[in-house]
């Protein structure tokens, strides 16, 4: 009914966090600018803001297509309150319960998949860092 609103809410939060992390990383990179070792490390490590962008892309992209599906089924309407279920109290409670179950599960699964991606990339980064002293 409006399950996609939960991933949208998460996407808003993670987008704000990404902006904050990105500005912090830019400041750190500017401070480390003169240090050669620092710049080498930056090349082999993926910035956390970039990893957060993966989560943002999954959440925003998926939510956009799901919103279209809700429009298709008439669950989103172009007039206030924009959700057809929100105009009726009985339907609204079903909608909220669906958001709490399906919506939260959607956000959790996307975040879990992103977590697995982080683990895999961390292993890859460690391998690159280990291989680097040998090649030098």
């Amino acid at each position, binding site marked *: 009914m409006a399950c996609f609103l939960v991933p949208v809410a998460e996407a808003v939060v993670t987008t704000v966090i990404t902006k904050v992390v990105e500005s912090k990383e830019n400041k750190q990179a500017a401070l480390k600018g003169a240090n050669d070792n620092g710049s080498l490390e930056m090349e082999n490590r993926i910035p956390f803001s970039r990893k957060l962008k993966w989560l943002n892309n999954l959440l*925003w*992209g998926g939510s956009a297509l799901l919103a279209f599906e809700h429009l298709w089924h008439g669950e989103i309407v172009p007039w206030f309150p924009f959700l057809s279920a929100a105009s009726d109290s009985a339907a609204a409670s079903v909608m909220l319960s669906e958001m709490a179950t399906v919506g939260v*599960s959607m956000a959790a699964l996307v975040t879990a998949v992103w977590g697995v991606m982080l683990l895999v990339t961390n292993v890859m980064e460690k391998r690159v860092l280990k291989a680097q002293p040998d090649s030098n």
Partner: protein
Amino acid sequence: MTLLTTVFAAIISTVIWYRNAPYDEMKTGILCWMYWGASLMWLVDAIYEYRELGAEYFIPAPVDMLNDFYLGLSVIALGLIIWLGILLISDPKGVVRAALFKNR
């Protein structure tokens, strides 16, 4: 059917992205994120529906299947339109700018 259609779109766009990686001039990565994100969300939807319907979930009525397939194709078309919009606005190859501001 919508889930299946989107998963196929996600797989095809990922293969196209991988073929050109690490260069992503056509920004096909956007399609991958969009379709995989939607596929994961629809997977959750499918799991809840399966819990409700049981084995009946796998034998949908032909009309429902056709409607879901039609929706799946529309979702893919919307994803492609979003991707095309981002591609033309960001214009990584500079062709839109070149075409607009070329000297006659």
